[in-house]
């Protein structure tokens, strides 16, 4: 039997029952559209979280002092003084897979300009900080290594600080602001980055040379943490291993002893955040999958009724020369055509509703091509799977009985 003819036969049969065909497809349309829209929303929120994390520097590594015991009392990591400037220097000079590193010391307090004041945090860093944390300077310039060496009282400020202090529209560049009574000259303004994933304002900060913060503000010799960037996201693991080795050696930590420091990468944060959205995506996909399954049962239901209703037609087709396999193929093709057409409409509807969600609800969406292929494959398989039984039933009919059927 000619497959082209079989398609024509199936198409003509479907053409005779357009409305019923549409009703049958409806289940598949809704199922596929739901799968695509749900996955688009799920993937979208995952992607937006990942994007936000990578604006913080996806290849960034943080080294903090570990919690140690001091006279039997476990101390918080921020009060530990085990991380030294020499540790940073060792990591910078000996560490492998590392592109940049900066020591970090920070202090919170009020920053004052004229009559305005605002709470903020001053970070003492070196110029590499910009690359590591993915900041850029929009106006003025970053301080230099020379400023670090000389402990110059200069700073670069974030957009929030600009808004809080310079309310009269003055040009901040060249102005002197005060932090804990220490005057610092503003030499640059950072480009705004907005809030991070945790809702923290990434523009509410003052950057100054770490030497300045250490000596003039905090009066300490140790450092709070070290920020390192690996040469690439993929090299993060190797960079962490290298840093750990250097620090264990420097801190004289023997085999089997607990580290007195912590090395963390953004990767852990990403995987933690992703696992939540992944779970949500799976949940949404499950619900959508169930509706696709119900759509498939709808096809089977209609095809089954259709076979009974068209018993005489089947008898006639057999009497004029249709073989069992011709009848089987006809009904199978009808089921597949219904589910594939429903699938195509569902894909279009799913993508459009995802864009409606994006534009009306302002939710992030991300349509992965694989979700389209997947739902398409599933609905074709649904057509074959749920079309098979009714088609088999039709092809097994006896032509004499079928012709006599009332």
């Amino acid at each position, binding site marked *: 039997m000619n497959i082209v003819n079989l398609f024509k036969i199936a198409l003509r049969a479907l053409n005779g029952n357009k409305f019923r065909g549409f009703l049958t497809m409806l289940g598949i349309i809704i199922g596929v559209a739901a799968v695509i829209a749900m996955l688009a929303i799920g993937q979208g929120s995952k992607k937006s979280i990942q994007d936000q994390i990578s604006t913080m520097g996806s290849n960034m590594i943080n080294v903090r002092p570990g919690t140690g015991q001091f006279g039997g009392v476990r101390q918080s990591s921020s009060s530990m003084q085990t991380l030294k400037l020499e540790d940073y220097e060792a990591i910078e000079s000996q560490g492998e897979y590392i592109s940049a590193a900066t020591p970090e010391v920070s202090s919170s307090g009020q920053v004052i300009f004229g009559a305005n004041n605002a709470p903020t945090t001053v970070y003492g860093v070196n110029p590499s900080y910009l690359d590591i944390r993915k900041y850029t300077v929009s106006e003025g310039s970053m301080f230099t290594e020379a400023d670090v060496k000389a402990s110059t009282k200069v700073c670069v400020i974030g957009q929030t600080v600009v808004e809080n202090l310079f309310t009269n529209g003055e040009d901040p560049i060249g102005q002197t602001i005060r932090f804990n009574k220490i005057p610092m000259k503003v030499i640059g303004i950072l480009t705004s980055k907005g809030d991070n994933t945790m809702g923290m304002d990434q523009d509410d900060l003052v950057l100054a040379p770490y030497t300045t913060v250490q000596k003039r503000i905090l009066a300490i010799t140790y450092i709070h943490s070290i920020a390192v960037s690996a040469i690439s996201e993929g090299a993060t693991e190797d960079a962490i291993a290298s840093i750990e080795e250097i620090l264990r050696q420097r801190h004289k930590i023997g085999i089997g002893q607990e580290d007195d420091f912590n090395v963390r990468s953004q990767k852990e944060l990403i995987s933690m955040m992703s696992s939540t959205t992944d779970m949500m995506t799976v949940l949404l996909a499950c619900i959508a999958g169930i509706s696709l399954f119900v759509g498939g049962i709808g096809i089977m239901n209609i095809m089954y009724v259709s076979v009974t209703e068209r018993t005489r037609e089947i008898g006639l087709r057999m009497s*004029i020369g249709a073989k069992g396999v011709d009848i089987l193929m006809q009904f199978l093709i009808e089921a597949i055509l219904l589910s594939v057409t429903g699938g195509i409409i569902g894909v279009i509807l799913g993508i459009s509703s995802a864009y409606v969600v994006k534009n009306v609800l302002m939710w992030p969406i991300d349509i992965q091509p694989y979700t389209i292929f997947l739902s398409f494959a599933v609905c074709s398989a649904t057509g074959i799977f749920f079309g098979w039984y009714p088609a088999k039933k039709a092809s097994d009919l006896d032509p004499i009985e079928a012709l006599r059927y009332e």
Partner: protein
Amino acid sequence: MNTGQKREIIKVEDIKRDYVVGEEVVHALRGVSFTIYEGEFVTIMGTSGSGKSTLLNVIGCLDTPTAGEYYLDGISVRKMGKNERATLRNRKIGFIFQSYNLLAKTTAVENVELPLMYNPTISAKERHSRAIKALTDVGLGDRLNHKSNQMSGGQQQRVAIARALVNEPVIILADEATGNLDTRTSFEILTLMQKLHQEEHRTIIFVTHNPELAHFSSRNIVISDGRIKSDTYNDEIKLAREVLETLPKEEA
């Protein structure tokens, strides 16, 4: 009638057909033999339960006999499988049913094309032109794209006849083909069948329970209790066309 030189279209030899219904064996055919030659118009008659339907099913290759031989156009059918018989029906037989059995909501042309759809050797173009020709032959050349539900019973049966002709069968099997039609339309259909027989020399088997119709065929076989009761040739064939003229004209 000299039939010695003619092609044997149907040859049944001592055909028996038994059915098992529960514990009982029903002998629907108890040994039937006859030969139908090319160009004959045979009516097969019998009351219900006489076995004529079973005989029709066997001749139509829808069923196989329990015993005996059946040759259709010289081909032995008895040992054929389902698929082989389906192909044989497709190439050699044209069926006409009492209830037309047209596809619903389908145009006349598409209905007539149907048997050729199951014949992969015929191209779409040839299929279409043959369907149009068959419809023109039965007088429906102006109704090619009418859908089956837009036509009268007589027109539907004409479409069914065109469908039976389109595959150029060696035999046309009509099963109570006028059973659902009023008298006038019945004679119109009968006129068409006689025309096919006399002008195109088609071989036709017309199964019916209406004894009147025997006057219009060239041969009449009567079945009773699974056996042939009589097999007579009709030398004075009445013309359905003439009867039609005597009927009062109905408002169209």
